[in-house]
């Protein structure tokens, strides 16, 4: 995206005292409620050196306000989040993906639905920068996971002015609004990695962005067939509080993936099963006041997927609305399901290549 008309980045002069500078950032309203690293000039320049393009290069645009995100502003917020320069290409790729109209980062951030952008980093770059794809996948504890996700939030509030209570009207908020960033696990993954299925050249890493409405732990320590394990996941996906035509993210625990892989199931088979079984009857939907003719017709119209059963509302429109992969620690029958933003398809997941532009 070419550089737009801009003013020069503003410099704030503060006393030479680190703790006073941290307080200053709070007073300016620049934080997510937690202390930030003061964005001193040298640290911002070091962050910007991770991308050789001009600092004023625009990487995302906010239609609602006309505000732009430049590499410079991204770098300032990345420093504040605690990112190292080598994390910056992930952050840049994430916003390049979020900038697409189909992702609709404004709506998914402003909404009462309270979604937060989930970043799933896939490929060798995740290992190169020390991301976590293992135990405590969603946190806490890993600097790369935690700070890249945090930088996303700081950019949304500081650059695009999506401020809680003012332009972010989330009813309940979402812990993912602090940070929501993971790496896809390659160790023990029987399926092609996301970056491979997304069509990138061998060796290219990617970041997938998804407006995630929450986090649902799916516990199953007794199931020992794919149908039993995925049946419990499908049930979580179809809970009345989450069932919509929207997309889904499912992260399978290694213990669960071993059961599915031992039976020789492909990713596509798992997606088909989940789509077919994550459903509620029309009567059930009417019973809780969530049935809509327009939505049922969309799902069962001309473009209906063959697995969409008459008389049922399924989660999503088709199996490939479900991103499913491996993540988490070796021990524990705990997978997870992350629903999409609110009621429908207002945000569609996107991905972009992570490019080292030093």
């Amino acid at each position, binding site marked *: 995206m070419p550089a737009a008309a801009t003013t020069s980045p503003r*410099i704030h002069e503060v006393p*030479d005292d680190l703790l006073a500078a941290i307080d200053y950032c709070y007073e300016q309203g620049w934080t997510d409620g937690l202390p930030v690293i*003061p964005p001193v000039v040298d640290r911002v320049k070091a962050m910007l050196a991770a991308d050789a393009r001009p600092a004023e290069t625009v990487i995302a645009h906010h239609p609602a306000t006309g505000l732009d995100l430049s590499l410079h502003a991204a770098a*300032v917020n990345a420093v504040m989040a605690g990112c190292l320069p080598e994390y910056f290409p992930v952050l840049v790729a994430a916003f390049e993906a979020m900038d697409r109209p189909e992702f609709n980062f404004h709506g998914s951030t402003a909404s009462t639905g309270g979604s937060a952008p989930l970043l799933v980093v896939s490929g060798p770059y995740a290992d190169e920068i020390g991301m976590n794809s293992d135990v405590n996948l969603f946190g806490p504890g890993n600097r790369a996971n935690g700070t890249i996700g945090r930088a996303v939030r*700081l950019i949304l509030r500081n*650059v695009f002015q999506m401020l809680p209570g003012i332009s972010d009207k989330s009813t309940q908020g979402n812990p993912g609004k602090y940070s929501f960033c993971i790496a896809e696990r390659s160790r023990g993954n029987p399926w092609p990695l996301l970056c491979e299925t997304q069509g990138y050249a061998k060796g290219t890493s990617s970041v997938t962005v998804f407006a995630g409405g929450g986090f649902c732990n799916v516990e199953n320590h007794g199931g020992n067939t794919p149908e039993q394990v995925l049946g419990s996941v499908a049930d979580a996906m179809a809970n009345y509080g989450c069932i919509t035509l929207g997309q889904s993210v499912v992260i399978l625990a290694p213990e669960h993936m071993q059961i599915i892989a031992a039976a020789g199931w492909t990713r596509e088979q798992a997606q088909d099963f989940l789509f077919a079984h994550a459903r509620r009857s029309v009567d059930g939907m009417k019973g809780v006041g969530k049935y809509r003719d327009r939505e049922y017709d969309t799902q069962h119209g001309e473009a209906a997927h063959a697995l969409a059963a008459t008389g049922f509302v399924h989660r999503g429109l088709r199996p490939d609305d479900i991103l499913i992969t491996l993540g988490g620690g070796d021990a524990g029958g705990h997978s997870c399901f992350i629903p999409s933003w609110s009621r429908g398809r207002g945000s569609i997941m996107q991905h972009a290549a992570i490019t080292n532009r030093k």
Partner: protein
Amino acid sequence: MQLYSPLSTTPKRKAFRAPPLASIDGLRIGVLENGKLNAEEMLNEVAALFVERNGCTVRTLASKSNASAPAPSNTLVQVAQEVDFLLTGLGD
């Protein structure tokens, strides 16, 4: 210590209001429903009040599939040619 501001460097956008209508009697109304639940029904009820009280006519119903984004330019251009004022709702 010098700190960079984390805010956008985009100059503040100037926003203008359309000039007010001298009267709404007999004017042509457009309705832009934004896909939100019951939006179309509610906007039509509001339009009906203008019809009843001010002799307006409802000329067109347009839709946008994304309540969170501005209506497509071509939608607004087309509707602007057919109506004197537009009823819509804000979503997100």
